[in-house]
């Protein structure tokens, strides 16, 4: 009797455990054949509705903290407009949530995930050419409106390698939210001290010396990851559009030019003016303490994005209510030149393995409708749509007017290159060593030599 009982128990256990493995999402046969799915609505303007709901995966970023129902409302509005149901995945660690099922061949239909994130999921999709061509979305009519997508987009946002990664005139990633990046500071502190915001780097160093005399450091940064937006703007302000394009495509000898050297000189000099505690706190668990240095009036400037206002809203500040966020573009390289501010762009894209590419394209097009844009604005998320700047409120008015005040808008990213063993990512090669520059255990020459060597390899492996 006992024996039979244990036998039953044992088999029940093994069965129940194995049953767990069978529950994996069923992979549709068509997802193994990506090119077939790129055929868009050729037979008329009414694409056939998908069998089931489309799957939308979006990163839960700072905007969601400001307005948690943002994405839910947009998806509901899309369903009301088109009748296509939407299943929404909204996660802070989106890569960890959708990554494993995508490795198993189960793709979301639409993904909102920018390039430049630590896990580099979007970059990997670009490198492996796993993103659907959505050039035709630009000429699509927005559901519920009569305008086309491209007629509403602010010129300049489509066409860089942030949206057309292969330089072949085809768009693979749609520009979704943009946020000007620049140097953030306590406007009240500068007013009190009678300091003016520097417009050239020479003025910046002067201010740095003045501030140091009062025990305030010129510069800090949350983590080295914030240097990408900084460096893009720096390259543009130093060398203009041509140099920027050459540098982001790793042109031969670009780092030996006067402009290239000047970029390195400025970063290296800035490292000397950086608060010494910065590298010790430039990690995922302590970076907000670096941001706190600005609130505590211990450092003057840090590179950041507009989300900083919401992120540090509850943090204590030395000046109390008098504290006022200020944001400036990067100073000009020489007197009379223009400053530059990088427009950090979050992209929305369709994996080429998606099941409902047509419905997904409609969804992407709908993102540029006035209804969707208004809902996104409630969370402070700003899309590159004509006239959107007039709808802004609060601090955002000042932040987004940065380009009207003479700063060059910088859009674009370092070109994608095929992964090569032993060759690091752009962040590892270019920006992570800044920690070492500040603490003094990496020399400037070593840093530049490493960048040059890596840059050569990156050029050879451009996709």
């Amino acid at each position, binding site marked *: 009797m006992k*024996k039979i009982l*244990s*036998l039953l128990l*044992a*088999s029940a*256990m*093994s069965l129940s*455990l*194995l049953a767990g*493995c069978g529950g994996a999402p069923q992979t549709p046969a068509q997802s*193994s054949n990506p090119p077939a799915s790129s055929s868009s609505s050729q037979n008329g303007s009414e694409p056939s509705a998908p069998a089931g709901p489309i799957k939308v995966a979006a990163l839960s970023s700072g905007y969601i903290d400001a307005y948690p129902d943002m994405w839910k409302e947009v998806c509901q509005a899309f369903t009301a407009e088109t009748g296509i149901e939407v299943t929404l995945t909204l996660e802070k660690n989106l890569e960890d949530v959708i*990554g494993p099922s*995508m*490795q198993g*061949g189960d793709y979301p239909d639409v993904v909102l995930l920018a390039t430049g994130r*630590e*896990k*580099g*999921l979007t*970059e*990997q*999709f670009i*490198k*492996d050419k*796993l993103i659907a061509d959505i050039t035709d979305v630009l000429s699509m009519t927005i559901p519920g409106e009569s305008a086309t997508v491209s007629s509403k987009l602010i010129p300049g946002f489509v066409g860089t390698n942030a949206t057309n990664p292969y330089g072949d005139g085809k768009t693979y990633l749609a520009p979704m939210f943009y946020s000007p990046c620049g140097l953030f500071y306590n406007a009240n502190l500068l007013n009190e001290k009678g300091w003016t915001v520097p417009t050239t780097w020479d003025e910046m160093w002067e201010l740095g010396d003045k501030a140091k005399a009062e025990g305030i450091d010129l510069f800090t940064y949350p*983590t*080295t990851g914030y240097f990408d937006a900084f460096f893009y703007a720096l390259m543009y302000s130093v060398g203009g559009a041509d140099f920027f394009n050459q540098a982001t495509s790793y042109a031969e000898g670009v780092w030996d030019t006067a402009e290239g050297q000047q970029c390195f000189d400025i970063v290296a000099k800035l490292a000397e003016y950086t608060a*010494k*505690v910065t*590298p*010790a*706190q*430039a*990690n*995922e*668990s*302590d970076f907000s*303490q670096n941001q706190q240095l600005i609130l505590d009036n211990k450092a003057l400037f840090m590179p950041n994005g507009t989300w900083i206002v919401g992120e540090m809203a509850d943090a204590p500040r030395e000046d109390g209510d008098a504290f006022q966020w200020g944001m400036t573009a990067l100073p000009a390289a020489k007197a009379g030149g223009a400053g530059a501010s990088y427009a950090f762009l979050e992209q929305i894209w369709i994996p080429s393995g998606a099941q409902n590419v047509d419905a997904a394209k409609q969804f992407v097009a709908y993102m540029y409708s006035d209804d969707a844009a208004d809902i996104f604005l409630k969370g402070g998320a700003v899309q590159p749509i004509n006239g959107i700047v007039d709808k802004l409120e609060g601090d955002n008015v000042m932040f987004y007017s940065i380009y009207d005040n003479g700063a060059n808008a910088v859009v674009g990213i370092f070109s994608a290159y095929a*992964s*090569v*063993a*032993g060759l*690091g*990512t752009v962040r*590892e090669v270019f920006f*992570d060593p800044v*920690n*070492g520059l500040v*603490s003094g*255990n990496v020399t400037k020459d070593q840093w530049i030599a490493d960048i040059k060597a890596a840059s050569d390899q990156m050029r050879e492996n451009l996709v």
Partner: protein
Amino acid sequence: MRSKGRSRFIFLCVAPAVILFFLFMVMPTINVFRMSLFERGAYSPTETFVGLNNFKVLFKDTKFITSMQNTILLIVTVTIITFFFAIVFAAILTREKIKGQNFFRIVFYIPNILSIVVIAGIFSAVYKPENGMLNSIFSLFAGREVMVLWKDQPMVIVSIIIAMVWQAIGYYMVMYMASMSAVPASLYESAGLDGAGRVKQFFQLTLPLIWTNIRTTLTFFIISTINMAFLFVKAMVAKGSSDVALSFMYNQKDAGLYGYSMAAGVVIFLFSFLLSALVSKVTEREVLEM
């Protein structure tokens, strides 16, 4: 007839575990070895066979060499410090009469049940450069403001060692306490009558009698240090400042080099396997019966 039924019963009892072990341990491990010979992105459906090329590049990759050095440094220092304190504390708590023995036992054990994220948070406060716990204590004794940048070079590895030791001591202490209390008190009594002092008793009686336990835990510890070092580095310090072998492997995956990262996985696998075998060979002693 009877023995046939019995063996069938044993077979059925063992089968679930064996099947699961094969599916979730052996198969993935074999797959790691296979994938280390290919190159592919984490999400790309295509893979190219590159033979041993991944390994060739790996042994020339200075980042990998540094990360292995960091791993070995952590294994050696964390093991020595943890075992020293765990054994000493266990001996004190079992052999000596101290007030609040249970209290200490719990206090030492608590770090072990905390999640790594919580530990990272605690040590963020401990290591904070301004007004952090450690720097404040040092300032108090030095009489001036001491500003050690714990999470910056060159202190960053020391910070990780301290946190890892803090986290591990309690668990091993409890293990040794269990085996120390199994040593009969009569042995200590007779040793005492023979004129052996406390320290001599510890080295002549306690240590030899719990030696089997130490050997086993040492193997556990080496493997867990390799894993824990990754979690601590990931949660506590800046990326790239003190990479260990597993965080190197993880970063390669994010860079889109799945095969290369698996090659690093193979090296780490063999390394920990060989190290455990070596340790168990070196610590081999004649087992003493009580």
